[in-house]
């Protein structure tokens, strides 16, 4: 019995290793395949903003959409999946994915500023008025309005809203820590802003965590963190005691895998991909978009 046993186990191990290796390789784009629609979880600000702008406000995802719990998950999926389509904060998109033109307009900061690229939304922090009695919070808000912050915002690919902002003057007496949580679309930028703020205010620490816009609303409303980050128009109903400050505007890019030949997509096509009630006009396969 000994030899057959070891032979079988050897073969099994080989099959497993080959499978694992093949899994890493990945296939190419195939237009006969279904579009793998990638969406975000309920409570995501990017999702509610995107669905509202393309005209599907309050609708659920199409049947079988892959739900990712954060901006990073969306990018990873599109990077690895040749037949995926997704929406993603423009400031977050890297060269790992291909950004589509929408109605022929490229998703750039200039096009968002002049209003030709339609899929854009504000990124904001919300806070309770009483929070500003804390000098650090007040200073952080002043910093967000300063030219120091606007410079980082522009550098990172977001749309600055203040043209002639004053420079930030540090207050040497400040020391302590504050925390900011919420939208993962704003998290990356907020990390960079926090690093800059901590350079200017040596004794201050700003802790930035994600969780999604829903978390941002909850934490700011209940005072768990001083600031909540949201990536949609402020909805007073979700945090009745809070005030909003819009840090910058951000486009939402429509992204596909790099091996995808598609360059441009229309609003109508996007609607027919993401509309759960599209019925007969629903776009299921890549063939419909790519010839």
């Amino acid at each position, binding site marked *: *019995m000994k030899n057959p046993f070891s032979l079988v186990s050897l073969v099994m191990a080989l099959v497993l290793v080959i499978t694992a290796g093949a899994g*890493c390789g990945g296939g190419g784009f*195939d237009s006969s395949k279904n579009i793998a629609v990638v969406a975000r979880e*309920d409570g*995501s600000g990017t999702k509610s903003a995107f669905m509202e702008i393309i005209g599907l406000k309050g609708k*659920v995802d199409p049947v079988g959409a892959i739900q990712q719990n954060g901006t990073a998950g969306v990018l990873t999926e599109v990077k690895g*999946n040749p037949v995926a389509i997704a929406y993603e904060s423009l400031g977050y998109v890297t060269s790992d994915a291909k950004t589509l033109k929408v109605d022929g307009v490229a998703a750039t900061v200039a096009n968002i500023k002049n209003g030709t690229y339609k899929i854009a939304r504000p990124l904001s922090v919300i806070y309770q008025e009483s929070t500003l009695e804390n000098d650090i919070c007040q200073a952080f808000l002043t910093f967000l309005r300063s030219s120091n912050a606007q410079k980082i915002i522009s550098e990172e690919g977001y749309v600055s809203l203040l043209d002639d902002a004053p420079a930030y003057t540090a207050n040497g007496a400040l020391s302590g820590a504050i925390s900011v949580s919420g939208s993962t679309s704003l998290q990356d930028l907020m990390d960079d802003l926090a690093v800059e703020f901590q350079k200017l205010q040596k004794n201050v620490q700003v802790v930035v965590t994600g969780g999604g816009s829903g*978390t941002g609303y909850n934490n700011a409303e209940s005072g768990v963190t001083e600031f909540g980050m949201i990536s949609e128009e402020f909805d007073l109903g979700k945090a009745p005691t809070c005030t909003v400050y819009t840090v910058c505007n951000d486009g939402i890019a429509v992204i596909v895998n790099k091996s995808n030949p598609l360059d441009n997509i229309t609003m109508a096509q996007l609607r027919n991909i993401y509309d759960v009630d599209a019925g007969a006009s629903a776009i299921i396969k890549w063939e419909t978009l790519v010839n």
Partner: protein
Amino acid sequence: MRGIFLFCAVFSILALGCICVFLLANGLPFIGKVGLGNFFGTKWDIHNGDYGILSMIVASLYVTALSMIFGVSLGLLTAVSLYKFCPRRAVAPIRQMVNLLAGIPSVIYGLFGLIIIVPFLRDYISPNGVGYGILATSLVLSVMVLPTIVGVSLDALNAVPKNYYEGALALGATKEQGVFKVMLPAAKSGIMAAVVLSIGRAIGETMAVIMVIGGSPAMPTSLFQSVRTLTANIAMGATELSGDPMTALVATGVVLFFFALLLNASFSLLKGGEKRENKRASKANS
């Protein structure tokens, strides 16, 4: 001193009580409020007050059933092999390895599934370009439940009196016939207990499932379709939702809790059956 001991003993009962009260007090009124028809409906749309979790119950059951088919067939044959068919010297190391599987955190199973299994299914097996779904999840879960199935059913086989097997051989049965026709039936209730335990593990697993299931609250129609299990539903929304949708997650927890109770009860019944059988067997021997 006795007071402290008593407190420790009572503490777990208190914890259980608190969790029960929390679940039922929050969940049941909510189910009553939205109505059974809504709560056990197929539409989950929290913006419009639809909290139907039927599709998630179905997805949970599919995932569990399929992972049991994979896991039990592999695990049971592993146990049989370790029991009689593999070289003596290899038994201890293989058992150790299988037990090691139980020590791997579930998030690592999830990562493996996300990075290896999902892309593999997507590129080579799936007809529609989706790797996420019931098949990917079942594959991950079937490996996760292996330690339970192998360990418990091997113990059950070892608990069967040796003279059953020797008797079978003496009557002219081959080694295979002895094991499959005599020993396995005799260890039946122990093996069933192993299956029930692993069903519990599969239906309650969250982290690994979330990473490979896809997450869309749709009724499963294919093995390669993004769906959502009960556990995934709770975990995906728990940190972001508030108000009614949050309570809906607690109510989802009530349903999950009910499944767990059901499994525990059947496990106790099976354990009782095994004890009775062993007693009968040892009486017959003496």
